[in-house]
């Protein structure tokens, strides 16, 4: 009996090691031609935030394999996400070389580029392209996540796409379907429009059973603005700025959206405490079975499907996020987003260290790893992965993610964006606390004008970089690097 247990245990341990072994095989040595390990014994320092499930995966599988293959030691400095920008910004301003690679969210690249601490990757790429394949991203995603305006500065670690997670056990329950049919006179389906979302949400909101309709993030200015824009605003035609950098948060569409998204009716369909929820609590409510559906991002998929982390993992499925039905055309417009962090190289480190950093990026975050990641955790952000028939068969939501990444809109990447984001997020929070949407949005809009003015933008005539322009930047960069990109024909 005891020996059987031992054998089983050994088998279990062995099975754990399997992905490691296969991952190792997939990494060529640093110089495939000679098998040399030029960086052996060196250290690579990465400043990171640890909380994203995909990155946890990176540590489990990818990093040991890279260390084994290259002889390099990886050293992580992990920080709470909210403390990361202050830390990186301070070090950059000081010209510090405390880390070689940094985790940079798309909204921050502008501020860091202005500090001159983002290394342009062109030279490193041309000298040793490796497995990096910058053309293997959609133009929108690459332009938002990996570039600072026309400069190429990063390799995306992940691209977040707005998604809708829902409980199949509730939506598929015949009793629920019948009850819904009776109450609303239509079939119970995963909502496709805002109105349907509100209806279905109302239907499932049963506080006495500790069940609510859905959950969004209202907890911090950054979060609330994020969900406001990606799940609702964009679909209604709200944008951040016009071409001259005039903010557009006082428009009718923006106020309408605010009235809906942070209106008391909509809030009432969410679990108590919603005004303070950030991503963690929202996710927690879903994984503990307290909500029927919720707006999430693609990178949370591994966690939502992990039975050790979610009591409803078996009953979780994904759908595109609901949109707004344009009254004139009758079409459903969805609000989409391509955003996320990239790994960027610190410009203040030595040239040898930059090469080492590039070596890690192109190997560890190249095509090969992306495939591995998608295969095992269902999250992908490279075109080659999102369109791979085998992977799509295994993870059907990848197709929807691909579509989203082709048209998604990213946040502005200006140095003052964090402050502007804060101003508008604050207004949204005040509306959630019962404030008047029209006047608060107008005030916030005026605040942003002041922030932009303060940064000298109106005087210097700097124009807003639209998503279309970002695509143009990407195409120009690809041409410069001698690469063909599918969307740049």
């Amino acid at each position, binding site marked *: 009996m005891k020996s059987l247990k031992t054998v089983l245990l050994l088998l279990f341990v062995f099975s754990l090691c399997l992905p490691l072994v296969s991952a190792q095989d997939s990494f060529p040595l640093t110089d495939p031609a000679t098998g040399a390990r030029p960086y052996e014994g060196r250290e690579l320092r990465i400043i990171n935030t640890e909380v994203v499930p995909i990155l946890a995966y990176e540590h489990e599988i990818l990093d040991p394999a890279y260390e084994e293959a290259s002889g390099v030691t990886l050293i992580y400095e992990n920080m709470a996400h909210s403390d990361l920008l202050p830390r990186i910004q301070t070090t950059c301003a000081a010209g510090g070389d405390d880390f070689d690679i940094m985790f940079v969210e798309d909204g921050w690249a502008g501020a860091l580029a202005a500090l001159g601490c983002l290394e342009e990757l062109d030279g490193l790429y041309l000298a040793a392209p490796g497995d990096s394949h910058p053309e293997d991203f959609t133009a929108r995603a690459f332009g938002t996540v990996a570039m600072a305006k026309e400069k190429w500065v990063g390799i995306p670690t992940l691209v977040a796409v707005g998604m809708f997670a829902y409980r199949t056990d509730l939506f598929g329950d015949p009793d629920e379907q019948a009850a819904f049919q009776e109450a609303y006179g239509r079939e119970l389906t995963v909502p496709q429009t805002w109105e349907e979302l509100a209806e279905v949400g109302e239907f499932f909101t049963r506080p006495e059973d500790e069940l609510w309709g859905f959950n969004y993030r209202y907890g911090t200015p950054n979060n609330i603005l994020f969900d406001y824009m990606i799940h609702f605003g964009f679909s209604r035609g709200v944008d951040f700025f016009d071409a001259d950098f005039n903010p557009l948060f006082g428009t009718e569409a923006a106020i309408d959206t605010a009235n809906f998204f942070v209106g008391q009716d909509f809030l009432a369909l969410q679990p108590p405490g919603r*005004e303070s929820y950030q991503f963690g609590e929202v996710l927690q409510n879903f994984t503990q079975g307290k909500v029927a559906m919720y707006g999430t991002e693609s990178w949370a998929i591994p966690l939502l499907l992990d039975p050790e982390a979610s009591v409803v993992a078996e009953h979780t499925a994904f759908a595109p996020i609901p949109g707004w039905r344009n009254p004139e055309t009758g079409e459903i417009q969805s609000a989409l987003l391509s955003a996320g962090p990239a790994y960027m190289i610190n410009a203040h480190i030595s040239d040898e260290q930059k090469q080492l950093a590039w070596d890690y990026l192109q190997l560890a975050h190249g095509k090969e790893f992306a495939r591995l990641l998608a295969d095992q955790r269902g999250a992908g952000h490279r075109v080659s992965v999102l369109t791979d028939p085998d992977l799509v068969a295994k993870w059907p939501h990848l197709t929807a993610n691909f579509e989203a990444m082709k048209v998604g809109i990213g946040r502005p990447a200006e140095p003052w964006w964090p402050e502007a984001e804060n101003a508008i997020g604050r207004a949204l929070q005040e509306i959630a606390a019962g404030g008047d949407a029209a006047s608060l949005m107008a005030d916030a809009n005026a605040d942003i004008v002041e922030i932009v003015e303060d940064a000298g933008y109106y005087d210097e005539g700097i124009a807003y970089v639209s998503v279309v322009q970002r695509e143009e930047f990407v195409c120009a960069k690809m041409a410069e690097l001698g690469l063909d990109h599918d969307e740049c024909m």
Partner: protein
Amino acid sequence: MKPDVATQPGGQSLSRRVYSLTQRHRHWFFIGPALLILLTVVIYPIVFSTGVSLFRVTFASTSRPFVGLQNFERMLGNDDFLQSAYNTLYYVVFSVSGSFLLGFGAALLIRRISRGRNILRLVLIIPITMAPIVVGLMWNWMLDPLFGLINWFLGLLGIPGQTLLAQASTARLMVVLVDIWQWYPLVFLIIEAGMATLPRAPYESARLEGVSSWMIFRRITLPLLRPVILVALLLRTVDAFRTFDIVRVMTDGGPALTTETLSLYLYRTAFTFNKLSRAAAGSILMLLVIGLISAMMFRFLYKDIEVG
């Protein structure tokens, strides 16, 4: 310093003068090193901040024009700054008075019991020993509207779930309560230590004269404890004034800015929004206010105590 130098004849010899000089200034030998370090680590930052506050400096800027008091003006005209100043005042008033009343009460009570006094005191001390960030996170967990122990307990009593940290109307109070939870034991400890040193004689004579215990408390205990009370109040005021950790992890200033403190706001302004000069101006303003408050408290304190 050799004692025999002093015994040398010839009162005004060079060595004699040197000796008397070193004798007169020997305190610097003890105080000097500490003072030197303090000048570097405290004065320099203040001078630096004052300097930065008069210019327009951001992390990214290469030109750094002198702007005089403009940063101060902008700060004082900024709604968020004023709101966080108001919040900070709220913290100071309620957290200090709350922790003081509770701590004082506990100190009075613990003198009425003998058995178990040590173990009770030990338990009450625990919150002071915890890092504020830990305390904040722990209470976040306790107060979670769906999973927290508090709502679970209220549920058992048939009271519907409360969302105390999420409501703009209650969040500030909750943070203050948690702050009080952590720091009333400090007041308790200080006051209790003070009570242990009170002389017995005035009490005995008062009791012989049949004075009521309330009057004893008011006329004897309170005046005698005045210096200790002021120390406790001073420490609490200062700590409440610079609250950062606990708010950072509990609400991060939300919802809708109702819990943002000055420290948090200035941290954000400097390090996230990249407005170094404005943050420096704000911190100088903050320093002036706390300097004023503590100077006032000192005047009360030094009436009773001779220092130096």
